[in-house]
Each structure stands twice: as structure tokens, then as C-alpha cells.
């Protein structure tokens, strides 16, 4: 199993990272090496094992339904760029 140049392009697209076309072969090579290293995992049978998502499972945290953050603009906008009338802006998006 390896990560082909086409796979690299697909992942780069999913992850929204532009990669110069001349760099794609080297990514493909490096990622393939990493993948074959990861494939060592396939050496053991884990059929009956439950996946573990959280290392410790004795917490059940919740917060009360109370508004604690009021006028959030002063804080968050102090260092934000690309604001227009308190809106964040991006190049026009067409649905």
C-alpha cells in the first residue's frame, strides 16, 4: 500500500492546503513511507477489541444553561483582521 500522487492531491484538497505540483512526488514518497510504517499495526488481530477514544472515562462534565459571555466583540475583535461593520469577511462565496 502506498499514497499515490493522486491520493496526495485528494488529501490536500480535503485539507485545503495547496501543494505545488513539483512537490507532490516527494510528498507521495514520504507519506508512503509513513504509511508503511503505520501498517505495522496490521500485524495483530484486533477483531474483538473495542476502540478506545478517551484515555480516562470517569468524567461527565456539563455546564448550567447560563449566559456567561456578554458582548463578545470587544475581546475577540481587538486583534481580528478583516472586519467590516463587525462582520468577518471572505472573498465572495456563491452557493
Amino acid at each position, binding site marked *: 500500500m502506498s*499514497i499515490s500522487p493522486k*491520493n496526495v492531491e485528494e488529501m490536500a484538497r480535503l485539507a485545503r*492546503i495547496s501543494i505545488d505540483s513539483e512537490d507532490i512526488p516527494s510528498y507521495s514518497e514520504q507519506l508512503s513511507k*509513513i504509511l508503511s*510504517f503505520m501498517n505495522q*499495526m*496490521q500485524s495483530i488481530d484486533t477483531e474483538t*477489541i473495542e476502540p*478506545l477514544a478517551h484515555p480516562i472515562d470517569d468524567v461527565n462534565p456539563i455546564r448550567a444553561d447560563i449566559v456567561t459571555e456578554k458582548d463578545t466583540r470587544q475581546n475577540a475583535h481587538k486583534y481580528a483582521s478583516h472586519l467590516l461593520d463587525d462582520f468577518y469577511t471572505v472573498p465572495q462565496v456563491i452557493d
Partner: protein
Amino acid sequence: MHDVIFNTVSALKEGLLSKKYSSVELTTEYLDRITTIDTSTNSFITVCEEEALRQAARADELIKQGKAGILTGIPYANKDIFCTKNIRTTCGSKMLDSFIAPYNATVVEKCIDAGMVMLGKTNMDEFAMGSSNETSFYGRAKNPWDLTRVSGGSSGGSATAVAARLVPLATGSDTGGSIRQPSAFCGISGLKPTYGRVSRYGMIAFGSSLDQGGPMANCVEDLALLLSVIAGHDRKDSTSNKRGTEDFCRHLSKSIKNKVIGIPKEYFSNDLNPEIQLIMDEAIKQIEKLGAEIKDVSLPSTSLVVPTYYVLASAECSSNMSRYDGVRFGHRCKDPNGIDDLYERSRAEGFGDEVKRRILMGTYALSSGYYDAYYEKAQKIRRLVKNDYTSAFKEVDFLIGPTCPSIAFHAETFTHDPVQMYLSDVYTVSANLAGLPSLSLPAGFSQGMPVGMQITGNYFMESELLSLGHAYQTSTDWHNRYTTQELGR
């Protein structure tokens, strides 16, 4: 005054309380030292002189009023992964080169509440992804014992700053060894607490189910002091454990007699570097002399922990890095031509190679068709790793082995071979996979470079872990060694 830098934190505290010097004087001493020496070590990304002196003056006031806590007036540094209100937080990345958080990380807030004095923000691998500090956008932190060698990573700046005595205490974060490995490489002490012990709020996420903040210092006693300040439940972090704050110094001098120490046989295979093997043998003998019982144990999944760790860490990283999109904060490319161009170029320009590699790898491991074979498989092996420890801790109280398979390597050794770099994490990642507390201590020297010993304990056994470490340091002096290198201008 110049000698204070070789004092323990308790001694510094004594100096402050007895008015031998003020916190402002102490802070100035360290700031001066940073100015002269950090040109060699590159430990700091940001030094905040003014803010530090302000905090020191406030601490002096508290001391005068008799309101000093355990670390009031003591200088320290934060890894640049912890958000600091009104002081920039870069996470070692161009992406956040100009990011200023409107809040403090809980760890930072607790240090402020304790009256501590933050000298600055330390260097680190970009977004904590790296084992050598070479992925930092700000250049690598250099190992004070040999500037041509790496500091280790990702908390390399904190390790070099403590080792070069630029600061007595520092915070670090550990996702797969990022506190312990640089501690070992630089000859200092570092603790990765139990997952959930120290709040992750405001500590920029890399692998959220693995990340844990912790203290770095010159000795275990100092670690206990800083841990007492930063640990504790935080309502802002859902994975924070409900246990309250604790005084980790209280049981420091407890005897380790009859404690059972496990030696995982997988950590001492024939591949282990013979000098490191020798140093470990010595250290284990020393601990035996202190009254502990030594027992062989097995952690059967050891050979799979590194690939498992890299699948999980990369997968979580790929998702955690998605918020850096150039829209609300962080690097934004010039003149984006449409929304996708804004994303793709901002991220391509803002992230370094290793971060990109991990994002792509993690995206792959989670993508349709590969999830079961990689991400879910890794989660299953993660359970096996946890089970290994559960069995081991039925027989023993602690597990001991080397922190790293080698001493600090030369810069650029693994730049083009990520897999070899990943393999240097073989002993450290398991504690993150299982969520266990794990300590690294200096235990000897090989080729003039420090070698670290790693002690792992059961969940929330930090106190016991620290008392074992303290007992070891009481009977050895590896932790008091200081580099013979000429540092600074």
C-alpha cells in the same frame, strides 16, 4: 546574586521571604541572563520584560503584605502553546506569528493567581509537532550541553531555558513525549501528569486525547511545587478530572521502601544502546538500594505504540488544524482569489512541512475507505496498550526505563527521514496513549550528554511518582550538573 540561578526554587523562595532579594531583583537577574545567554540557546520566542517586572513588583507587594503563596515572586516561562492575554502566542508557527489571544490559558491564569512572574514564551516545534524543535518557525532551540545537538521537542525551548538556568521553572506540554524527551536531552526533570490532571483550556490543541500540560524544572522538588499550582479541575475543559487541587510537596519525602518497580522487558532489548543500558542498570540499582523491590514485567504492545500513536495524533491534528483557515485570526494570504484560494494558500503559507505532512496523513487515516484500517485500528491497539499497563500495575507500583533510545542527536539528522524521527518516541508515547503520569529524570551521561530515566506510575499517582523521583535525586546529583559549554556573547 549571580549564584541564585543554581538554587532550587525552595531556596529562591527562602531568599524572597527573608528579603535577601526582591522578586524584581530576581527577575532582573534572570532577564539579564536571558539577554546574554539566549543568543546561544534560542529558548525564547517572546521575552516580556515589562510585564515580568510588573508582575514581580506585584509579587513583592504580596510578599510584603505576608500574602505570599508557594511560588509568589518566582520567575517562570510558558511554552508558547499556552495562550496569554495581550501577549502573543505563536505556537512556533508562522500561522500564529501575530496572534494575540483575548484570554489566558487556565495554566497561565493559575500561575498569575499564584503570583508567579512570567519571563516569556518558550520556543517549540510548530504546533508541538516534532521531536527536535527543528520545526519551529523561529529556528530551533539549541541544546546547552552541545549547541550542535537538538534540544529535543516539542517543549525544547522550555528544556533549554531551564537547563541553561535562564529560568527556574517552565511549563511544557506532552502529546507523545514532548515534556520528557527534551527534559532527558537537556538533563532536566519533567513530568507529564495524568491526562485530565492539568487543564487543556487555552493550551493550543495538537492531539486532544493525548495532550497534557506539565512542569519542567531542575529537580523533582521544583516540579512538585509547579504542579501544585497548575493542576486541578477546570470547568472549561470537559476532559479535566474532577479532583481538586493538591499539595504535591506533602508526600515528597515519603519513603519508597517496599515499593515495587517494574522493568518492562521490551524496553531493554538487545537493540538498546549499551551506554544507555549501563546507565539504566546503575539507576535501577540505586533505586533498589533505596529499598524498592525490582520486578520484570512485560508491555506486549510496545512494538506497535509508535505507529499507533502517529495515526491517532495525526488524525486528531488534521481536524484540530482546520480552524486555521485565515478567516477569523492567524495568517491570511494576500489577495485571495475566491474562498478556496484563501484557505489553500493561507494554510500552505502558514504551516511548515511537518505540520502539513501530519495533516495530510491524518486526513488519509480518517478518510472514507481508510478509517477502519488506520484510525479505528489504532484506537483498538490503544485499548491494548492501556490493558498492558492495567495488568502491569496489578503487579508493580512503577515502571522504569530509558526516556529515549539515544542521547540528543545532531541537528538535521532526521530532517529528511520522518519515520526515524518518530521512532525516537518509542518509550514516551505509551503513557500518552494510556493517559498515565510519567516522569523523566537525569540519570547519567553518555558522550558528555545527559541521559534520562523515565518513571511511569498509575493514574493520578503523581505524588508517589514524585516521591520516588525525589528519593532518587536525594541520593544522586545528576540533576545538579551544569553544562561546561560557553554560552552567550
